[in-house]
């Protein structure tokens, strides 16, 4: 079980990470705040647009929307070009909620990336698993 996924098909200048942030590693518990976080590190001088299309594929894990638990989450992340040195970071996160006990609860996230101004985009699917209590 892994609650962190780092893309392997992105350009070497761009690293995308999908992970669950919670007080207990890889566990989402009722009443305990937890987030699904997508972070990007850009080492190129080109700005990127990252489209996040994420969905819970099992029954006991959901995104915690204001209106109640939802299956999916979509977001567009703008990653600026790097400064003179180091990487340019950007991140987006959405809270998660547990709907009961589950051992291998899964979240599948389609991450697509494109350079600003370039019409073509590439994508990779990141799957992470958590335990819910």
């Amino acid at each position, binding site marked *: 079980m892994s609650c962190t996924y780092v893309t392997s098909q992105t350009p*070497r200048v761009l690293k995308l990470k999908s992970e669950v942030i919670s007080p207990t590693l890889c566990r989402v518990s009722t009443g305990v705040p937890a987030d699904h976080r997508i972070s990007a590190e850009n080492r190129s*001088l*080109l700005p990127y647009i990252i489209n996040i299309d994420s969905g819970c594929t099992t029954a006991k894990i959901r995104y915690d929307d204001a209106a109640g638990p939802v299956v999916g989450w979509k977001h567009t992340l703008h990653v600026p070009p790097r400064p003179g*040195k180091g990487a340019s970071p950007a991140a987006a996160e959405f809270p998660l909620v547990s709907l009961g006990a589950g051992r291998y609860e899964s979240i599948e996230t389609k991450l697509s990336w494109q*350079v600003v101004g370039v019409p073509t985009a590439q994508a990779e699917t990141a799957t992470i698993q958590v335990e819910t209590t």
Partner: protein
Amino acid sequence: MNCRNLLAGATELDGQSSWAVQNSWIFPLALAIFLLLISPLITKWTIGVLDGQIATDGARHGVPANAVIYPHVHPNRIHDYVEWATDLVQIVPAGLLPIASTILALTTKISSLTCVLLVLGLAITTIILLLYVSSKDASVYVSGWKLCTFYSVATSFAIAMNVLCIPIILYFGH
């Protein structure tokens, strides 16, 4: 009269034994350090010249101003390629020339075995650095560690090699 004699004549005007002549082997190293210190500026200038050439070439080929430029050949990406390639080609001379200079300077003062060990050690270090830099993506390398936020791994290595060889010559040269 050769350059060494010229230097000797210029520095022995007062009839004293010249420190400069005795240690003349360190001057090429000092010059190399100076050139390495200004090398980032030369690279920036080269990038500027290259930008101008790309713009002129694009105009002469009738490339429209709003043409899509793909990321791998985008001018910003080319800037990183230039910086990376410049470093890659200078690693071998940067690693081996200072030690060659040191061995020539100390040719009668150090044993053959020491020479061989020095060259072998530096050659292996240089090859490792060459493989490391060549394995890196250009942008990842350029945005990586820099000495004083200015000097890349290869340039820092070259400066360090030259700086290290100066005290070796000064110490063993007498």
